[in-house]
């Protein structure tokens, strides 16, 4: 072996996606639900992977930068980030035009990944499982159909 791979230990190469936790806004555009990143306004494509894009480093997150698609390791960190209290008094402080509700859920991460103490920055990502916080069964059905992932409209299931 040559090049960068020579410096890696076997633990640094994985063949299964990592899974992290994130929060999204659910926004309706042209009658279709779209997942939008909580703070960066990135629309997540349906049935296509989201690829990171950094002006300095391209799609592959750099260790000493903030680039890449972010996710937390823990569900509670994602809930706290979204501005809600876990299990009780779920209320969000943000609002945006066209916003239908919020979603918290697990996300698959792959490609080049920088693992941090509390989360990840990844090259590629796709939602794995979603929980609507203030949504209803209709939104859950629309999202599940569009993104082809399991969507629950019962935030109580997050505590399970």
């Amino acid at each position, binding site marked *: 072996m040559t090049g960068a791979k020579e410096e*890696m230990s076997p633990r*640094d*190469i*994985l*063949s*299964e*996606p*990592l899974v992290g936790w994130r929060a999204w806004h659910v926004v309706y555009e042209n009658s279709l639900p779209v997942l939008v990143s909580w*703070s960066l306004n990135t629309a997540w494509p349906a*049935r*296509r*992977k989201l690829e990171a894009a950094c002006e300095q480093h391209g799609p592959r997150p750099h*260790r*000493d930068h903030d680039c890449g698609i*972010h996710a*937390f*390791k823990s569900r509670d960190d994602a809930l706290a*980030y979204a501005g809600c209290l876990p299990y009780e008094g779920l209320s969000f402080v943000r609002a945006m035009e066209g916003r239908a509700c919020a979603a918290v859920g697990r996300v*698959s*991460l*792959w*490609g*080049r*990944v*920088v*693992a*941090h*103490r*509390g*989360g*990840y*920055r*990844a090259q*590629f990502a*796709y939602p*794995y499982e979603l929980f609507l916080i203030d949504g209803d069964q209709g939104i859950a059905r629309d999202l599940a159909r569009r*993104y*082809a*992932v399991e969507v629950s409209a019962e935030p109580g299931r997050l505590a399970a």
Partner: protein
Amino acid sequence: MEIGEPEREIEVWPLEEPVPEEMPVEAPEPVRIPA
């Protein structure tokens, strides 16, 4: 997002990407032309 200090770099390359396939394009309903 505050995710703490970087700890290690990982290459994650699954044999199959965890992305559902594109939705099949549905054929449009046939239009009935009255006789």
